[in-house]
Every structure is written in structure tokens, then in C-alpha cells.
């Protein structure tokens, strides 16, 4: 299915709005994507028509809420290539709903990292990581005596499979890395990285927060043990993260949060826990958000992930070409759409990134500025003062890129 512009404009009314009195140009989808009408409708339908709790009531509305909630779990499993599985074969892994990517990352750091790592064992990560993937492992190392090792990056923010593999040792127990950098868009060879990490017996954790919204993923083919991402970066609502984990590993882990919904039997002094996935879903889940996410997955499946990737590749190629004609623009990252997602971060000579961000804002253009929750990466790229990030999604067009460059030219004039 190709992109139907009229339909997109109908589904995303915000695209026709104004900001600071100028037509709204949204180039910050790596922070959060815009929300289509269908997602909002799914959520308001729940609240207005059958907005009751799941897994509790024996009445019809609760049954409906529970059924639809669980259908979204199945939809997510299908999206990740887990379904349909062969008859008689138990599922390879489970989908757990969390409140965010950050919570999913913390779940693993607490329930796996703190519980299982021993002094001297190693965690391998990279210099490109977002704080949500990096920071939870710092206290794990403090508490357990495990050692955090990082794969260094080139001045373009990249690393090779060898750079990664040469740092794996028999002591590496966890390899945790992003499938796509939120700053440079760099996409490392994750499939091969997972394979090499497994060869030394390491657990593999993939941060898919940026990647999953733009690319089809099949966790079985990928072979990772864990993958997490956020609904709000793929048309869904805020307040919902997804953690995929392999069943046999999840089963050996203690719960992360304790309370209602995750228990099987409770007495005064002890309790037993519900089997997967509820063991990791304590408390009332974000029901409306899960239902909204279901509508987001439908929307993405209708467009098809490969169409999305093609469109974004075209936009990125266009943006990089425009930037290459301006010697006073310094683009961070590989500048190669084959290994780069729909993100272009840059600085303009003589204009501080925050000033540029504000001047773009005054022209109705939304971009991200600053250090992008990735301070170590910014230091390694020697842009401690930050950079401007333009990030795209399928609803963007070449016109948005043109508007961005007009804005940049104006800022350049003002700061001369």
C-alpha cells in the first residue's frame, strides 16, 4: 500500500495545525510520534463504552475489556513474528506490558542483573546508548561488582561487528545495546551481534525504542533474549512500553513489582505468583493505552513496515543531500541511509543548537535540541554543547525537509 496523503492528513489532524502562527512542521518523531485519530478513538471507545478493569470482574464489560486487552498482546506477538507458532509448540517468548521502555530496561536490570550477576562478570554495551539503556546497569555494577564494558565508536558514531565481538569474553554475561541510535540514527549489525554474544553464552538485550517503529522485526529470526520499545514512538499513546522476553529466561526471574494481578494465592505471610506474563504485570495495567496501541499496530500493518522504511530512506537521503551542499552544516552520524534510520542530527557553524531550535520553533518547526538523553555519546562525538535533531516518520514529506532547510538558512542569516 502506498502513502495516501489525503488519508494521512485526515488521520493526523495535528499535521494541519499551526504552531507559533506558522504551519506546523513536525520533525521530532524520535521523541514521540504523532497520534492518529484511530488510536484516540480506540481509547475513548473504551472509556465511554466499557471502561472497566481487566482480569477482575465476572461481568460482560470486564470480559470485553479483558478479551480486547489480551487480543492486543496477541497482535503485538504477531507484529514481532511470534505468532502464529507451530501447533503443539509452546511460544518462544512472551510480551509483557510495562509503563515505558525505561521501566522495561529497569525490570531487566533489577530482576535479572541484580539477582543473577556476580562480582567480576561483565556487561557489554556501547558508547551510543540512550540513558534508559545505560544508566540502570550502573547501580547493577555497584551492587554486584559486575564490570560494565563499552564498545567505542568512530567519529561518525559507528562501530563494526569486530569492534563489538572483540570485547566479548567468557565472562560476558549480558550484552545490551540499541538497534538504532536516538542521536545519529546509526543501526549496528544487531543480528550478527546477537549471534556472537550468544556464542560466549551472554544474555542479549536489544533496545528497540527507535528501531521498532520504523522496521519490521522478527524476534525469532533476530534471536535476541529480550527486546523492549515504547508504544508512543509508533503512533500509540504515552505510558506504555513493551518488553519481549524468552519464556525460559523469564521463568527463572523474580517479579519486578509486587501487588495485585501478578499473584496466584496470597496468605498473611506469603504468596505465589501468576504464570507469565502476568507475573510481571503487577497492578491495574494501562488498559486504554494498550487498546490504543492495538489500533496503532493495525495502522502500521495497513501501511506495511517496508513501505514506511522506504519512505523514510527517501526522506533521509534527500535531507543528507541538502546538508551536504552546505559546508557550514555538520551532520553527526554515518550519513548513510543503509545503516542509518530516519534521524539527522546536526550543528550549524556559528549558531548554538538551542538558539537554532528556538529560531526553528518560531517558524513552526519542531525539532529536538540538546544532548538527547545520551550524554556519553555526545561527549564521544565531541558535541558537548548538543546538536539539533530532525527525526522523521512516514507522515513527513520532502516539503517538511525543504521547510527545515529554509528555517536553517534564516537562522544562519540572523547569526551570520
Amino acid at each position, binding site marked *: 500500500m502506498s502513502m495516501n496523503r489525503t488519508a494521512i492528513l485526515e488521520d493526523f489532524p495535528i499535521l494541519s495545525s499551526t504552531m507559533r502562527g506558522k504551519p506546523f512542521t513536525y520533525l521530532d518523531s524520535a521523541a514521540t510520534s504523532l497520534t492518529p485519530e484511530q488510536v484516540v478513538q480506540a481509547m475513548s471507545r473504551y472509556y465511554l463504552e466499557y471502561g472497566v478493569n481487566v482480569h477482575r470482574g465476572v461481568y460482560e464489560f470486564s470480559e470485553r475489556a479483558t478479551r480486547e486487552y489480551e487480543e492486543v498482546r496477541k497482535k503485538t506477538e504477531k507484529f514481532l513474528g511470534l505468532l502464529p507458532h507451530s501447533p503443539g509448540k509452546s511460544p518462544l517468548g512472551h510480551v509483557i506490558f510495562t509503563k515505558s521502555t525505561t521501566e522495561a530496561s529497569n525490570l531487566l536490570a533489577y530482576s535479572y542483573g541484580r539477582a543473577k550477576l556476580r562480582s567480576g562478570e561483565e556487561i557489554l554495551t556501547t558508547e551510543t546508548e540512550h540513558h534508559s539503556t545505560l544508566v540502570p546497569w550502573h547501580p547493577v555494577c555497584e551492587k554486584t561488582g559486575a564490570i560494565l564494558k563499552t564498545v567505542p565508536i568512530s567519529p561518525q558514531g559507528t562501530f563494526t561487528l569486530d569492534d563489538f565481538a572483540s570485547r566479548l569474553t567468557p565472562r560476558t554475561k549480558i550484552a545490551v545495546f540499541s538497534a538504532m541510535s536516538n542521536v545519529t540514527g546509526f543501526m549496528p549489525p544487531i543480528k550478527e551481534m546477537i549471534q556472537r554474544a550468544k556464542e560466549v553464552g551472554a544474555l542479549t538485550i536489544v533496545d528497540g525504542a527507535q528501531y521498532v517503529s520504523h522496521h519490521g522485526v522478527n524476534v525469532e529470526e533476530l534471536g535476541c533474549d529480550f527486546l523492549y520499545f515504547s508504544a508512543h514512538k509508533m503512533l500509540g499513546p504515552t505510558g506504555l512500553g513493551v518488553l519481549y522476553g524468552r519464556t525460559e529466561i523469564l521463568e527463572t526471574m523474580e517479579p519486578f513489582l509486587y501487588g495485585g494481578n501478578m499473584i496466584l494465592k496470597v496468605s498473611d505471610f506469603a504468596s505465589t505468583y501468576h504464570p507469565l506474563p502476568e507475573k510481571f504485570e503487577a497492578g491495574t495495567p494501562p488498559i486504554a493505552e494498550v487498546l490504543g496501541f492495538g489500533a496503532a499496530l493495525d495502522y502500521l500493518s495497513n501501511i506495511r513496515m517496508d513501505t514506511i522504511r522506504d519512505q523514510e530512506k527517501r526522506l533521509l537521503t534527500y535531507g543528507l543531500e541538502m546538508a551536504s551542499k552546505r559546508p557550514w552544516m555538520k551532520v553527526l552520524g554515518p550519513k548513510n541511509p543503509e545503516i542509518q534510520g530516519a534521524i539527522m542530527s546536526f550543528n550549524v557553524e556559528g549558531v548554538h*543548537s538551542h538558539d537554532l531550535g528556538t529560531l526553528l520553533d518560531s517558524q513552526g518547526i519542531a525539532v529536538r535540541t*540538546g*544532548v538527547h538523553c545520551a550524554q556519553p555519546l555526545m561527549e564521544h562525538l565531541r558535541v558537548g554543547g548538543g546538536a539539533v535533531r530532525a527525526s522523521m516518520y512516514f507522515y513527513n514529506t520532502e516539503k517538511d525537509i525543504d521547510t527545515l532547510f529554509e528555517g536553517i538558512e534564516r537562522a544562519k542569516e*540572523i547569526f551570520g
Partner: protein
Amino acid sequence: MSSLMEMYRNPRYRGVLEDYNRSSTEINRSCGDSVTLYLRVNSQGIVEELQFAGEGCSLSQSSAELACRLARGLTCAQVVSLSQSFIRFLLAEPDQPVESNLPQEFSYYNDLRRYPMRQKCALMAWEILENLCVAQG
């Protein structure tokens, strides 16, 4: 904007004061911008000399320049009052003019009232200055 740019591009007070007796640095966590102020305050509590150092956007650096220009020669109590009036000025409604008893240079930052996310940039230098003057009377 042009006068703000003039202060950003051609600062008169940028540098490290040799015989300073009060100094402090602040870093904006969201962007890494920094401002350091060096003050020489005499025994009567008058800010005799001051200079600033730092790196960052036009707002953080120009407001450090402005703070230095306006604070030189004032008593610590006057500096505190000036700093507080700058904060009140920024938080006022966008179209409200600068009160006549206040430095008219404040008006360079008029537009900033519409950009609350950026106000921290312009306030950094004033906050440091105020703390340095309050701390030791």
C-alpha cells in the same frame, strides 16, 4: 534581537578577573551551557569589578554580559533587587512593557517571555550573581 546579538558577539566583560574574591559556576543540565562569574566585592559590599566566562547559546552568554554591565558599581543589596526584577520581568505577560525604573536593556529579552523552555538560559547568570551577593552580604 540586534542588541542582544551585540552583547553576545562583542562582550566587554568576558574574561577571568584576576583579583576576584567571589566566584561560582552553573551548568544547564539540559544543554551543557555554562556560566562562571568572578566578582570583586569591597568591604562596603560594593561590586567593584566583575567578569564572566562560559560557553553556550546567545541567551546564556548575552545575559551574563548584561548582568556584568548592570551590576558593576552597585551594592550587593542593589544587585539582588536588580536580579529579582529581571526574573519578574521575564515572568510577566508577553506584551507588558519594561517598567520605567528598570534598565531598558531588559527589553532585549521581551520575546523570551513567549519561550518558557528557554528562560533558564537567560536566568543562569542572574541566579549566580544573586547567590554570590546574598551569600556574603
